[in-house]
């Protein structure tokens, strides 16, 4: 294996960008900030592609199995023998794939933002935050230690918070960034407790050792972890479920998804990068990273993963059909697609043919990042042109935005699962994996894929067809080369990514997994997808009132879905009415009366004593002298007559 320590540069280059632009950007790089950040990231992208080439084709494969390599490991904090927080790099197929994906999407967003964010007051800060995010995300994917991943996990949460709240003078954005931070932070509490449980039982924090100790049937660590139970569930399952809660919070799984739609208050390229392609799949990545433990030792926890995934996928798809803000439609679509990845992992088994779900999940993660980033950037171009997020302000834009129109259409076809676009291949694999292992989930997924096709084409037709709109200012057109280039590159990705033989690179046990193509199996999902598209075409291609009539007929269901099934309201009810009233108020009373009270009482006693005694300090020098003389005489008398 050649020297690969240069990999450490891949996360450090964006970090350098963050430091330079964050410290000096405002004064020195007001105009050139974007170029600097983009060039740094371009270098990082080239390095990661080089790494991927080297790993997949030169040194990664030993005896037909992709090895886990650790080019760099630095022990940072050692708690006891074997339990230490390391800073290291772990190279395996998924981390290498994520490296390429994150740097590529981030590079696209950097280029796109050159045009989209031009003229912003805090332009350098925007690029600094993007650099911080890219650094943390790259650090997250190459983490070799579960605590290292937690550190970067929080860092991506922080940068997401900063970027959602980028327009800090908009009250909505401020509320959204707080919400995102609190909800994910709340879920991360589960992750932290999960880490503690896992490390307590396995006696290590290192991923490779952790997985090895908790999966091999003869290891004593595994036996104790399974033997000790809490509420009838083994400690190991608790640990894995808690880790999954952390992942679910970051990946916006039901019922912790409430922050994601609101996060759309951030700038659109940020939504493309963080809330569609990279950060929100961190949860999927985490489950993948610990997949051997899930699959071999805690099938119950894995079942939970699959049902949470399926529930999120279907609920989000239903809500997406009713939303009118185009970015919110895309947000729910993201949640739904991540649900797909989750249940694909959930239905997967470890090793061989049964590990199809694992490969499918990673494949879908890859293709989804391409087409969803494309959808968001396309939506960004539309918003840039029309200055509104609402569907009702749009229509007939295909004449004004030809490039955006074509690329958006490609992305829509990809997400709807129409062959030969990327989403078709990955979605077929997921459906096949579900079909083989869990038929309930297969049917949920099938219906959801129909809904997906429907809502995405509802979006497409509403923006580009439907009524004719006459935008009043046409001065900036499509935003120039910097905005076109990422759209075109991502469109190529969304078309071609499906033809990558993914099973050759990523599989649950490192062996090559031949991806077979079943024509007869694909007919049903594609037919359902096309039906969805067809219905959307009837309802939304021409301006008509069919959609309103259907909504009126289904008024109850429609209203519930439009209001996102009142989940936000339920949260508010629980927090405001139950937690605040039953826990918050008594706690506040206790704090005010008992904690503060005892401190105040001591202070009051001191005050009373000092009021009584302050007369002594009169300021009369001679009085002091008398006291002094008396005391001296007293002491003298004591020493002479009494002390002897």
């Amino acid at each position: 294996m050649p020297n690969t320590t240069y990999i450490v540069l891949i996360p450090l280059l964006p970090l350098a960008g963050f430091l330079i632009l964050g410290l000096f950007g405002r004064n020195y790089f007001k105009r050139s900030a974007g170029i600097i950040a983009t060039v740094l990231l371009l270098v990082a992208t080239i390095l990661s592609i080089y790494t991927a080439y080297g790993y997949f084709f030169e040194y990664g494969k030993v005896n037909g199995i992709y090895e886990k390599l650790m080019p760099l490991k630095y022990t940072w904090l050692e708690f006891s023998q074997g339990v230490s927080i390391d800073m290291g790099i772990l190279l395996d197929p998924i981390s290498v794939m994520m490296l390429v994906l994150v740097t590529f999407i981030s590079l696209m967003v950097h280029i796109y933002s050159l045009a989209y964010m031009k003229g912003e007051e805090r332009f350098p800060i925007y690029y600094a935050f993007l650099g911080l995010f890219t650094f943390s995300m790259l650090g997250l994917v190459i983490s070799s230690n579960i605590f290292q991943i937690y550190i970067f996990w929080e860092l991506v949460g922080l940068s997401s918070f900063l970027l959602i709240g980028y327009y800090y003078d908009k009250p909505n954005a401020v509320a959204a960034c707080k919400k995102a931070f609190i909800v994910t932070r709340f879920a991360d509490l589960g992750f932290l407790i999960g880490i503690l449980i896992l490390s307590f039982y396995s006696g290590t924090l290192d991923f490779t050792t952790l997985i090895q100790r908790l999966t091999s049937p003869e290891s004593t660590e595994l036996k104790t972890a399974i033997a000790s139970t809490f509420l009838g569930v083994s400690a190991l399952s608790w640990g894995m479920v808690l880790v999954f809660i952390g992942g679910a919070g970051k990946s916006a799984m039901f019922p912790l998804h409430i922050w994601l739609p609101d996060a759309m208050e951030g700038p659109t390229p940020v939504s493309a990068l963080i809330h569609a392609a990279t950060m929100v799949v961190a949860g999927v990545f985490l489950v993948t990273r610990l997949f051997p433990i899930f699959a071999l030792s805690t099938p119950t926890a894995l079942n939970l993963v699959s049902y949470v995934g399926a529930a999120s996928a279907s609920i989000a798809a239903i809500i997406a059909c009713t939303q009118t803000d185009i970015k919110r439609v895309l947000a729910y679509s993201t949640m739904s697609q991540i649900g797909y990845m989750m249940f694909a992992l959930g239905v997967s088994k470890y090793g061989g043919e049964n590990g199809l779900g694992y490969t499918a999940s990673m494949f879908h993660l890859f293709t989804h990042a391409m087409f969803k980033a494309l959808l968001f950037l396309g939506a960004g171009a539309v918003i840039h042109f029309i200055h509104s997020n609402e569907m009702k302000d749009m229509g007939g834009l295909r004449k004004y935005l030809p490039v955006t129109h074509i690329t958006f259409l490609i992305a829509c076809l990809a997400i709807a699962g129409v062959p030969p676009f990327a989403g078709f291949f990955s979605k077929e694999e997921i459906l096949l994996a579900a079909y083989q292992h869990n038929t309930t989930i297969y049917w949920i997924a099938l219906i959801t894929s129909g809904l997906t096709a429907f809502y995405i084409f509802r979006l497409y037709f509403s923006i580009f067809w439907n009524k004719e709109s006459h935008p009043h200012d046409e001065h900036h057109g499509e935003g120039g080369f910097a905005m076109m280039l990422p759209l075109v590159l991502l469109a190529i990705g969304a078309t071609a990514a499906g033809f990558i033989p993914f099973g050759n690179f990523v599989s649950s046990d490192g062996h090559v997994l031949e991806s077979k193509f079943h024509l007869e199996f694909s007919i049903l999902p594609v037919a359902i997808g096309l039906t969805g598209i067809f219905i959307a075409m009837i309802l939304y291609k021409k301006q008509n009132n069919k959609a309103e009539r259907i909504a009126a007929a289904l008024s109850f269901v429609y209203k519930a879905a439009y209001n996102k099934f009142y989940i936000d309201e339920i949260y508010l009810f629980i927090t405001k009415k139950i937690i605040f009233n039953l826990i918050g108020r008594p706690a506040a009373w206790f704090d005010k009366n008992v904690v503060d009270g005892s401190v105040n009482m001591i202070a009051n006693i001191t005050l009373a004593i000092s009021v009584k005694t302050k007369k002594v300090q009169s300021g009369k020098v001679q009085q002091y002298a008398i006291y002094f003389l008396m005391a001296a005489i007293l002491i003298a008398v004591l020493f002479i007559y009494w002390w002897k």
Partner: protein
Amino acid sequence: MMQPGLYQILFISTALFFIGAYGFLTRRNLITMLMSVELILNSVNLNFIAFNKYLWPDRLDGLFFTIFIIAIAAAETSVAIAIIINLYRSHHSIDVENAEEMKY
């Protein structure tokens, strides 16, 4: 000529001390109070010399202490005079009552 004994000298120094203390406690004029302090210090000096001469005539500790006290008394007087002059500048009086407001 009759040599004074230790007791006579101690009597004088005690008298001197209490005259000084009385002056310090009763006078209102700061200069007078300063003079009283000097009386007290000198009574102490007398004590040191007397004990040195009558009890340990072969040693010099008492003499050294006296010299130190004289030097320090001079320094102390200069500081006190400086304070008194400042007080006079701000209040046009050197009454000790005026110093009371320094507590605030």
